[in-house]
């Protein structure tokens, strides 16, 4: 298999829109060229995307998908040929990527860049590419499915923004984060008037009245918190306790006359395919009744109740009356109260984590609170750079 063979398949897949046939053809080709696990993964995710699956069939596919990711995700990410900090796959191919370094010059003209061609969301936050880097990207990147591009914190000026406005390989681009760059009105106007794509969301980090962050800033700060604060702790649990398969961050917001608008967070770890909140008590320590950890006897010294881990106890900073409000209130169910018994009474899952290293941020329950200004303002920190 050569890089250009692979690139041809990937580019055909990228232009295939919702048609899974090119993907399945590629899977056959991978089978014939010594990569059966990758082929099975593509078939498994394509099957999951099809309609009319029975619940049993869907569950068995999900389990197999997870097994394959657990075994191969890291190797598949390394095979991209560029440094990837985070990747999500859909129908067998990368759907969203966060790169940890700006690609070297010439990358976007190389066959390896085809691995980006199926991506709909590309996070290039804080990679300091500068105007030269973004001009190279604008000239050579061919990302026909890309809808969301995070370019905040890249040292881009009007020059780079104007170059990006001329990009011919980003026809589906509709959401662009450009805060924490030095883009002025000329660059902004060029992007708004570009005839190469039609931006519905051009985020320069301008919060609405009553909000601490713009939606993009909130999104980036939340991802950064997960990557730098929470994921290392959860990976530590996965490493130490081999039976654990999943974890979830759960959040609640409830008010009492004393509690201000605190947003509370808990992590539930689990041996199950996905954690369950049933039977989990936030302040109990009766692990025997907790369905998440029937075979995992914790020996941690930090406080937890069964499978429910206290964030502060695990060393995760969680500023419940300040930063947690703009970042996580939108994921908490409404009508919570502080006198709950079981955690499921007031908490809802916000993020799912898996043994393979990936995670999924779940849909917001109260999007009107995303980025909202809290009593102390939820000051913008380095996470939103």
């Amino acid at each position: 298999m050569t890089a250009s063979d692979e690139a041809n398949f990937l580019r055909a897949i990228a232009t295939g829109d919702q048609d899974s046939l090119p993907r399945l053809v590629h899977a056959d080709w991978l089978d014939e060229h010594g990569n059966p696990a990758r082929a099975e993964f593509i078939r498994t995710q394509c099957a999951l995307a099809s309609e009319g699956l029975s619940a049993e069939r869907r569950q068995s596919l999900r389990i197999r998908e997870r097994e394959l990711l657990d075994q191969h995700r890291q190797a598949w990410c390394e095979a991209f040929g560029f440094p990837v900090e985070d990747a999500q796959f859909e129908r067998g191919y990368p759907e969203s990527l966060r790169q940890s370094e700006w690609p070297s010059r010439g990358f976007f003209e190389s066959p390896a860049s085809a691995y980006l061609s199926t991506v709909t969301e590309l996070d290039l936050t804080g990679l300091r590419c500068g105007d030269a880097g973004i001009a190279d990207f604008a000239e050579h990147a061919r990302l026909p499915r890309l809808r969301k591009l995070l370019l905040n914190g890249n040292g881009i000026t009007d020059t780079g923004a104007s170059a990006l406005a001329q990009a011919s390989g980003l026809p589906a681009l509709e959401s662009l984060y450009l805060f924490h760059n030095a883009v002025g009105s000329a660059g902004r106007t060029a992007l708004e008037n570009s005839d190469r794509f039609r931006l519905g969301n051009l985020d320069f980090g301008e919060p609405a009245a009553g909000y601490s962050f713009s939606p993009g800033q909130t999104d980036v700060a939340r991802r950064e918190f997960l990557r730098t604060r929470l994921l290392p702790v959860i990976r530590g649990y996965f490493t130490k306790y081999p039976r654990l398969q999943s974890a979830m961050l759960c959040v609640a917001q409830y008010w009492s006359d004393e509690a201000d608008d605190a947003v509370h967070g808990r992590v539930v770890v689990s041996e199950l395919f996905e954690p369950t909140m049933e039977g989990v008590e936030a302040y109990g320590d009766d692990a025997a009744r907790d369905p998440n950890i029937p075979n995992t006897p914790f020996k941690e010294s930090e406080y937890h109740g069964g499978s429910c881990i206290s964030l502060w106890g695990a060393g995760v900073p969680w500023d419940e009356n300040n930063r947690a409000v703009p970042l996580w209130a939108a994921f908490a169910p409404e009508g919570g109260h502080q006198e709950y018994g079981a955690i499921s009474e007031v908490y809802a899952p916000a993020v799912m984590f898996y043994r393979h290293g990936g995670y999924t941020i779940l849909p917001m329950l109260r999007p009107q609170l995303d980025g909202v200004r809290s009593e102390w303002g939820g000051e913008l920190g380095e996470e939103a750079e």
Partner: protein
Amino acid sequence: MLYLALSCYQGRRMGDAAEALYSLAPGRVGLQLTPGCAPSPITLDCPIRTHHGYTPHALRTRVWDCGALLWSGDSLHPPLARDVPEGWQPPDDVVLETMYPGYAALANGDQIAQAMDEWRWLAVDVAHLDIQTHHGVLAESVRQRLLEYERVAEVHVSASHEHRDTHSKLLTHTWGTEWARAKLATGTPVILECYMHHLSHEECQEQIAFLLPD
């Protein structure tokens, strides 16, 4: 007049919460603007009162700083006892709400009696009085004196549960409802502040009917 607290729909957009509440009894109720909703314009033309930390510019704003008052509005909670210096006394010209143990003022019968001795205007929360009773810190004589006290600026109504300030819906036997209805009839503003997120439309209207019979 009966006012519906924005906190009945805490967490929603201010404008949405206001519209939903006012539509329960249009023309017959006002709104008490409370913290905890997402900032958005409120365009209703109805009587308005403001409460503890409400601001249109954030989820809420600070009210006290080490006992110094930062906020102004129709009524407010005293600060927590742990947040003020020893011997702290509330300012004279504010309407403080009766609270429960843990607060620096109006947290028990003795403090309520002192406030009445000083002829202060008070916001009386019947659920909080119930909590004081549960804790055994509100003498019946003080409670009776408070119910007859002339300087009641507002009455706040919801149901509590033992020591818990749950802002639950009113039931036929909820203590204080009848007294609140009587105060309402004499012109004292009464604020309904039970959480309505999980109540049906009929249950919400029933809550209003407890205080404002047709």
